[in-house]
Structure formats: structure tokens, C-alpha cells
């Protein structure tokens, strides 16, 4: 084991040195010689028929090189959806084409219908204003209920409906669930909204297309969480550029949160333009464009029912959800409200019946897709809010009600009623830890103190489970994924003993450059600083599926582990050859190979050097070189879980909510770097609290985005957040991946929203207000209205 910086060590993030000193290299920092600049003309109406687009004046403006409209891409393929969902009646989902540029119709405010390429960005932006687009505004489809009821106002005329699919999970369990609810002694019902969020990564999207007429090679430098998937979509579906002629490079990326998983039309456009012009073409999103055209998150409307015995034993969960997919299907938009949501609807509980119905709805709004948590925050919010309400109705303590229904540690592997097999967990241990950390005994005293100051204090409890390590190809294939979701790593030991590890996962804040070397260093007994992670460039790394769904360490890290095992195996052969003994007699420990029962010993560095100067190798048994690749496809998802508590103070005069404490007890399995994990949880908590209290993407009835700037869309700031207590010591190892890890990137954003809302409702209830629910964001206006309405 590495003396310092191996598994479990809180090594400082090496990438922070460049990030914190302004030396990161982001896409927009790259400007090849002779770069031209691209600006888009975007729709100001939510639904409109394009009669004509006159680009003559724009084309004549100073510096303008060329102008594109949707007409130029009419023959090019559409940007596809990655998951096929079948409706309850067996019909496949509706998949209207998503073009590079809008053609014939614009379908949401911000839908790009033309692009200007000019010598400077300012010239491109000026010329966009000179484009004369004759677009007839049509009635917009905004509200999901109206969208489903209305068969004449359509987002996509060619599919004849605004419903993408009507999905049942698990359809075979429907009748039994209905029956169980009908006969149940107690049923708690709650209707709730999971508010639409705008991701707002600090770095806006940016794409640069290059074309080399000498070789016919294309290069796309872009803000992506998964360069190989982007290359695959461009090559196989949108533009038909052979993969061996297209490099996709995602350098440093300043935040993704899901919004940079997907392939966007701007990426295809800059490539096409670069080919046409024989010059690099660069586009950088403005903040306004980001609000209008990045894939948004959440936006569910749900009715959930919890049926239980009078003693609180759960009998059934049943939900009906409308999920907004916006105007076009973004790449994962159909998976997020279904398999990343419905499959988690049994929560941490031994409930025998679960039935989930989700209708996905097209509207004239920006596309909606996975955003930090992706489906699991929606599932957790519905479950944990209705459980809280049931506890009140039954007169039970909310912790006791949860504990009564927890899956117990001796029940694993546990087949949940929503179709997943949880491999490990210990929810009672998490709750024990939470109860101790939250000082529940002292709550009444704190509440009295708050009351003295005229504030209503409340306590919110929540437990969650999520499915991470989004991968198992066999499982996701059954569930509708059109790709397998393994990952890959190549470990290259260089002749002088240092190591390059090429990985398919992309790091944009997750700390891979620090954590992955800790795994390898631990296995090889070498200094982690001698190991370098290479990621983000399809010309350098093996085909991987990128970073999302808290999968990088569990899936790609496991590939790194397997490739390193292969390295040890081959190095053992070389060591045995060097020490003139049989491989089975060779031990490897602390970076040294030795022959059992002798003092013969060679170091890992000696073996590496020998691998590249193989003067006397038995070549039929040992090839020169020391480089191994592994593709890792796990057997199951991983199942992180947690128990959260939050205390809030509500100002009864203004309705303002202050979060006094937030405690996160998470089970992430083995932890490679506890400091990075803590940071990931803190970030997730901030985003979850943002959703709970502040953030809301609001469209008016005409489909205009009203919260379209950082003046109008409230992001969480430091003074909105308490000091977090983050603890991941109550861990149960993942049983099926070699590192035993589960994934921590999204947990905070999944666990915190219901915790906060539970606390606010608790404060109001204790304060004598009969308020059962407040939709997020729990703004002062909404709280005040709930108290006084």
C-alpha cells in the first residue's frame, strides 16, 4: 500500500492547483489560428411557423463570412434520444426529429433558426440582428395538463399528440397495487410539483469546430461530460462523419450537472461550418442563451398515494406523474422520468406493491433532461413527502414510521417492489448516526429559543436510496437504453516507471485526477504523484461513456482497477523471468516482486524498464511493453443511501425560511478520498437547497421564460446555506464492483429537498398552522400565503 495518498486518504485535489490559480484551460480559452465566430438567431416566440428567413442583409454586413439556416441542414440527421420507452399499450414513444437548426417551425423561445459566421464575435452578433425572419406566432403549449388535453395545438404536428409516452412501471403490478390501495385501512395522498430547474453551470457551453482539408480530419473541442458519446451521436446519427476522422476533445469543463452530457445542435453546426469555410469556427454561449437552450431539469407534476396499515406498515405506493420533456427529446430525456425515477419508487422500504405511471409531455419550452440526481430526486421527494404526511395522519413519529418499514441489514440482496435488486445497505445504522448527530433530544429547547425570537422552528427528516454507477449494459438494455453503459481504462506503465491512465470518464469537478491515481497507487505500491490521468480526448482515451449518474469511480474506476490487475499479472511474468523463477512463486507487495522463500527481489520500476528493453524475453510467452486496457461492465447498479436531517426557522411575519442545520449521513460504500466525497456532498446539498428554497424556471402562458437571467433566477449563495455536517462513516461495501464503491456525486441534491420541505411544514404545523404541503421553491411568498391563505 502506498504510504501516503492511497485508498482512503484525504489527498488534496491536484487539479485544484491549476483551477485555483487561473491556469485551467477551458474550451473558450482555445482559439486556433484564423478562427471565425458564430452567433445564433434564436426564436423569441414559443411556437411559430417560419414563413421565410431573409439573410441577404446579414450576409452583406461587415466581416460576415456565411449565414446558415435550417434549410442548410434539412437533409442532415436529427439528434436522437438515447432510450426507447414503450407506452403501456406497447406502442413505442413518439420521437419527432430534433434538427441542427429549426426548420419550418420554431418550438421554444431560444430555438436557434439561423447562424452567422463572421470574422469577429461582435460582427456575428450585429449580423444576427440584420436577419429578417418572418415567423408567425402560434398558440403555445406550456401547461402539461393543457398539452395533454389539447389535440389541436401541437408542439410537433407530425406526431398528432403532445404525449411522448404513457409508461407504466411495473404494468403487471398495477392491478395488485390498485387492489391493495382499495382495501387499505389508511391511504395518504399528496399532489406535488417538482420545480423546473435551470442548470447554470458556471462555464457556459462552448464549441469549436476545425477541419483539416489536407487529411479530411475534423476536430470538435467542446464542453462535454462524455466526448465519446458526443462523437458517436455526431458520427452515427447527425452528420455521418466517420469516427476515425472525428476527434472530440472536452478539456477542462467548468461544471456540468447533467447539462453537458448531451449533444447539442451547436456542436454539429460549428463542425459543418468549419468544413464549409476551411477555417475554425467558435461559438460560446451567452448566459441568456444558456438559460434558453441548455437542457433544464426536473419539472414533474405528481400525485402519490401511500397505503398502509394503522400501525404504519406500508402496503403500497402508487404515483401518477406528468413529466415535461420540453420541445424536443434531449438524449437522456426519456430515461430520466422513467427508469431513473420509477425504479426507485420503493425507496428504502419493504413495501410489497408499487406502481408508477409517467406521462411524458411535449411543451413549447426548452428540452428537459437529467440534472444532478436525474429522476431520483423526483422519486425521493414524492416518497419522503408523502411518508411525512402519513406520519402526521397516523400520529406517528416520522423516524419511527420510516424505521418500521426499512429493509433490514440481513435482507440483502433485496428485490424491491419496483424491480431493482439492492445489493447492500444499512438504513437503521444511518438513522442511528443521524439521531446522534442531530441531537434530537435538544430540539425542544432550540425550538423554545427560536420561539423567544419570534421564529417558528421545525425539524425535517428524510431517508433516500438512489441507483448509481449507471451502467449494467444487460440491465439498461432491457430497460430501453440504446447503448451499453460500461466504461474503459488503459493503464500505460512507461519505461521509467511513471504511469499514464487513460480513462473514459470525464472529470469536471469530481476530482478524478486525484482519486483515480489513489486506486492505482494503492494496488501498485507506487507514489500517486507518478500517475497521471488522461481524459476527455477521444484521440487519446479508450471508448468510454463519460461522467453522469455518479458512475465514474464505480464503473470507470473499476475499469482502472481491472486494467491495473492485468498490469500486475503481466509484470509478475516479467519479474519471474528476471528472477529466473516461475510466476506462481512470485509475490507482489509494496511495489516489490519477490520469490517466495528467497531474498530475490525486483522493484516495480525495474520491471517497467525491463518491459521496454526486452533483450531476452521468451517472446512466445511475454510481449514487450507494459500497457493494459480493461472494459468494465458491472452486474448491477450501486445503491447509495442516506438519512438527512434539517432544522429551519420560519419568520411568521415574512415567510422567510432560514436553514439552521443540515446533516447528511450517507452510505457511499468504500471511500477512496473522503475529502473529495465531502466536497461532492456539500455541492449537492447546496444545489438541493437551491431547488428547495430558491430556484424556479418559470414560463408564462405564452411560453416566455420569465426567470431567464441571474437577476430573476435565484441561485443559492453562501448566506443561504448553513454549515453542513457530512458523514460517510456508516458505510456498507458495494458487493459487486472490485473497489466496493457506490457513488457520491448526486446524493446531496437528492436527499436535501424533501428534508428542507419536511422541516418547513413541521415548523408551520408546530406553530399551529394546518399546512400539509408547500411546493418548491418554498419562497417567502409561498410560505406566507400558506400560513395566511
Amino acid at each position: 500500500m502506498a504510504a501516503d495518498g492511497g485508498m482512503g486518504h484525504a489527498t488534496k485535489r491536484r487539479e485544484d492547483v491549476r483551477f485555483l490559480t487561473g491556469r485551467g484551460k477551458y474550451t473558450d480559452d482555445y482559439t486556433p489560428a484564423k478562427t471565425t465566430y458564430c452567433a445564433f438567431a434564436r426564436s423569441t416566440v414559443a411556437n411559430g411557423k417560419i414563413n421565410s428567413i431573409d439573410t441577404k442583409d446579414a450576409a452583406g454586413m461587415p466581416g460576415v463570412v456565411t449565414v446558415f439556416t435550417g434549410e442548410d441542414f434539412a437533409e442532415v440527421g436529427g439528434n436522437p434520444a438515447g432510450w426507447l420507452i414503450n407506452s403501456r399499450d406497447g406502442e413505442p414513444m413518439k420521437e419527432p426529429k430534433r434538427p441542427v437548426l429549426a426548420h419550418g417551425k420554431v418550438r421554444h423561445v431560444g430555438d436557434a433558426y439561423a447562424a452567422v459566421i463572421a470574422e469577429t464575435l461582435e460582427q456575428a452578433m450585429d449580423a444576427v440582428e440584420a436577419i429578417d425572419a418572418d415567423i408567425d406566432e402560434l398558440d403555445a403549449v406550456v401547461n402539461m395538463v393543457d398539452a395533454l388535453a389539447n389535440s389541436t395545438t401541437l408542439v410537433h404536428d407530425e406526431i398528432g399528440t403532445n404525449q411522448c409516452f404513457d409508461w407504466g412501471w411495473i404494468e403487471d403490478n398495477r392491478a395488485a397495487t390498485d387492489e391493495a390501495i382499495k382495501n387499505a385501512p389508511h391511504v395518504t395522498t399528496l399532489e406535488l410539483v417538482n420545480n423546473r430547474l435551470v442548470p447554470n453551470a458556471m462555464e457556459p457551453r462552448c464549441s469549436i469546430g476545425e477541419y483539416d482539408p489536407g487529411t479530411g480530419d475534423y476536430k470538435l473541442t467542446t464542453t462535454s461530460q462524455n466526448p465519446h458519446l458526443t462523437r458517436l451521436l455526431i458520427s452515427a446519427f447527425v452528420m455521418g462523419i466517420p469516427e476515425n476522422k472525428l476527434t472530440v476533445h472536452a478539456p477542462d469543463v467548468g461544471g456540468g450537472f447533467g447539462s453537458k452530457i448531451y449533444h447539442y445542435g451547436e456542436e454539429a453546426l460549428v463542425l459543418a461550418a468549419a468544413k464549409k469555410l476551411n477555417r475554425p469556427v467558435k461559438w460560446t454561449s451567452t448566459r441568456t442563451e444558456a438559460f434558453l437552450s441548455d437542457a433544464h431539469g426536473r419539472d414533474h407534476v405528481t400525485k402519490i398515494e401511500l397505503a398502509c396499515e394503522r400501525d404504519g406498515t406500508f402496503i403500497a405506493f402508487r404515483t401518477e406523474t406528468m413529466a415535461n420533456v420540453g420541445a424536443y427529446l434531449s438524449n437522456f430525456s426519456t430515461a430520466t422520468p422513467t427508469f431513473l425515477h420509477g425504479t426507485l419508487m420503493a425507496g428504502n422500504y419493504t413495501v410489497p406493491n408499487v406502481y408508477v405511471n409517467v406521462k411524458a409531455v411535449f411543451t413549447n419550452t426548452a428540452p428537459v433532461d437529467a440534472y444532478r440526481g436525474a429522476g431520483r430526486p423526483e422519486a425521493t421527494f414524492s416518497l419522503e413527502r408523502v411518508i411525512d404526511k402519513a406520519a402526521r395522519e397516523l400520529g406517528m413519529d416520522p423516524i419511527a414510521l420510516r424505521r418500521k418499514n426499512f429493509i433490514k441489514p440481513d435482507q440483502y440482496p433485496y428485490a424491491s417492489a419496483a424491480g431493482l435488486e439492492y445489493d447492500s445497505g444499512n438504513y437503521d445504522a444511518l438513522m442511528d448516526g443521524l439521531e446522534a448527530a442531530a441531537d434530537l433530544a435538544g430540539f425542544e429547547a432550540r425550538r423554545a429559543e427560536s420561539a423567544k425570537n419570534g421564529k417558528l422552528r421545525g425539524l425535517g427528516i428524510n431517508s433516500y436510496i438512489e441507483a448509481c454507477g449507471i451502467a449494467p449494459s444487460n440491465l439498461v438494455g432491457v430497460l430501453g437504453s440504446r447503448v451499453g453503459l460500461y466504461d474503459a481504462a488503459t493503464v500505460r506503465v512507461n519505461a521509467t516507471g511513471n504511469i499514464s491512465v487513460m480513462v473514459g470518464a470525464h472529470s469536471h469537478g469530481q476530482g478524478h485526477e486525484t482519486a483515480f491515481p489513489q486506486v492505482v497507487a494503492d494496488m501498485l505500491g507506487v507514489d500517486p504523484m507518478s500517475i497521471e490521468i488522461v481524459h476527455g480526448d477521444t484521440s487519446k482515451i479508450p471508448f468510454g461513456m463519460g461522467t453522469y449518474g455518479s458512475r465514474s469511480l464505480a464503473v470507470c474506476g473499476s475499469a482502472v482497477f481491472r486494467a491495473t490487475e492485468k498490469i500486475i499479472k503481466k509484470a509478475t511474468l516479467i519479474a519471474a523471468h528476471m528472477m529466473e523463477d516461475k510466476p506462481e512463486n512470485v509475490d507482489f507487495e509494496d511495489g516489490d516482486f519477490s520469490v517466495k522463500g528467497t531474498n530475490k527481489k525486483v522493484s516495480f520500476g525495474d520491471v517497467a524498464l525491463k518491459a521496454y528493453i526486452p533483450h531476452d524475453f521468451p517472446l512466445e510467452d511475454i510481449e514487450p511493453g507494459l500497457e493494459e486496457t480493461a472494459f468494465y461492465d458491472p452486474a448491477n447498479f450501486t445503491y447509495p443511501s442516506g438519512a438527512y436531517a434539517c432544522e429551519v426557522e420560519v419568520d411568521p411575519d415574512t415567510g422567510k425560511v432560514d436553514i439552521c442545520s443540515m446533516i447528511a449521513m450517507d452510505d457511499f460504500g468504500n471511500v477512496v478520498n473522503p475529502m473529495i466525497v465531502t466536497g461532492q456532498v456539500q455541492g449537492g446539498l447546496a444545489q438541493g437547497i437551491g431547488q428547495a428554497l430558491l430556484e424556479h424556471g418559470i414560463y408564462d402562458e405564452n411560453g416566455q421564460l420569465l426567470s431567464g437571467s441571474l437577476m430573476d433566477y435565484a441561485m443559492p449563495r453562501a448566506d443561504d446555506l448553513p454549515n453542513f455536517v457530512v458523514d460517510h462513516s456508516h458505510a456498507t461495501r458495494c458487493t459487486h464492483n472490485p473497489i466496493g464503491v457506490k457513488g457520491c456525486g448526486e446524493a446531496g441534491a437528492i436527499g436535501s429537498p424533501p428534508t428542507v420541505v419536511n422541516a418547513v411544514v413541521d415548523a408551520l404545523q408546530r406553530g399551529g398552522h394546518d399546512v400539509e404541503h408547500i411546493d418548491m421553491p418554498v419562497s417567502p411568498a409561498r410560505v406566507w400565503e400558506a400560513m395566511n391563505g
Partner: protein
Amino acid sequence: MNLADARDIAAPRTAVWAAILDPEVLKACIPGCKELAGTVDEGFEAVVVQKVGPVKATFKGQVDVSDIVEGQSLTLTGQGKGGPAGFAKGAAKVSFADTAEGGTLLTYDVEAKVGGKLAQLGSRIIDGFTKKLADQFFERFQDGLEDPTDADDVEEDEEKPKKGWIGRMLG
């Protein structure tokens, strides 16, 4: 955004009715109106400069007068495109009635909507903005009818009502 209000104008209904159908009056009363050409029957082409919160834009568009019931009511509809700033649309249903004092009671019902950058950046102030525009329009209209003498005091500042358009027309 909807807004309804009424004004008591110290001028006979025939004069008020004639005034609202006069292009020069419209031009003088529409806040920020730089150009207005056309007829009641054909509609008007207008250029209006307005600043909504952080967005200042030149709107080119159409003003139409419809639903005309002679001497009693009409609808003024305007829509303008402000290029990258987005668009604004509005309609005012206006009706006229005699008052006991021999003046005219003018009631109006305004509906307005904005799109594009105006909506994204200006929505939180758009209600107040619409009210301000409507108030300015009808205030100028009223002042022009009630105080036709001080035509020389025309203020070029678009934020302040231009007084005395009748005096100017007559002069």
C-alpha cells in the same frame, strides 16, 4: 398582464372621439413614438423607442384601430418587433361616455404581452412598465384635450407628457 382604468376628460365626446382617431394625436401620445404613418382604415406603421429595465430597443411595428363603434368604443392594437430585444404586443379597448358635467368618461382595458429578452430580463418589472405606458398615453391624451394652449412648452423628454398637441395642430 391586464390593466383597467378610467379617466374623466373635460372635453365633449365628439372632440375626444375625433382626437383618438387622429394619427398626429396617436403619435404625440404613444410614449417613445418616433414615427407614425398611415390611416385609421389601413393601420399605422410605427417606430417606437422604449427602455424596459435593462433592455432598450427600437420597436418597428403596426398600430391598428378596430372594433369601431362610432362615438362609443374602439380597440387600439399595437405590436412591435425589437430585434434581439424581443417583441411587445398590446391591445387597449377604449370606450367613451358622456359625463353629467358635459365631459367624457374614457374607460380602457389594456392587455399586454412581451417576448424574448424583454420577457427574460424585464418580466419582474413588466406589470409596472405596462401601467406606466398606459398612464402616459392617456395622460398625454387628456392633457392635450384639456389644455390646448401651451403648445410651445413641448417637452422633448419622452418620459414627460408632451402637452398641447391640439394647440400645435391648430397653430
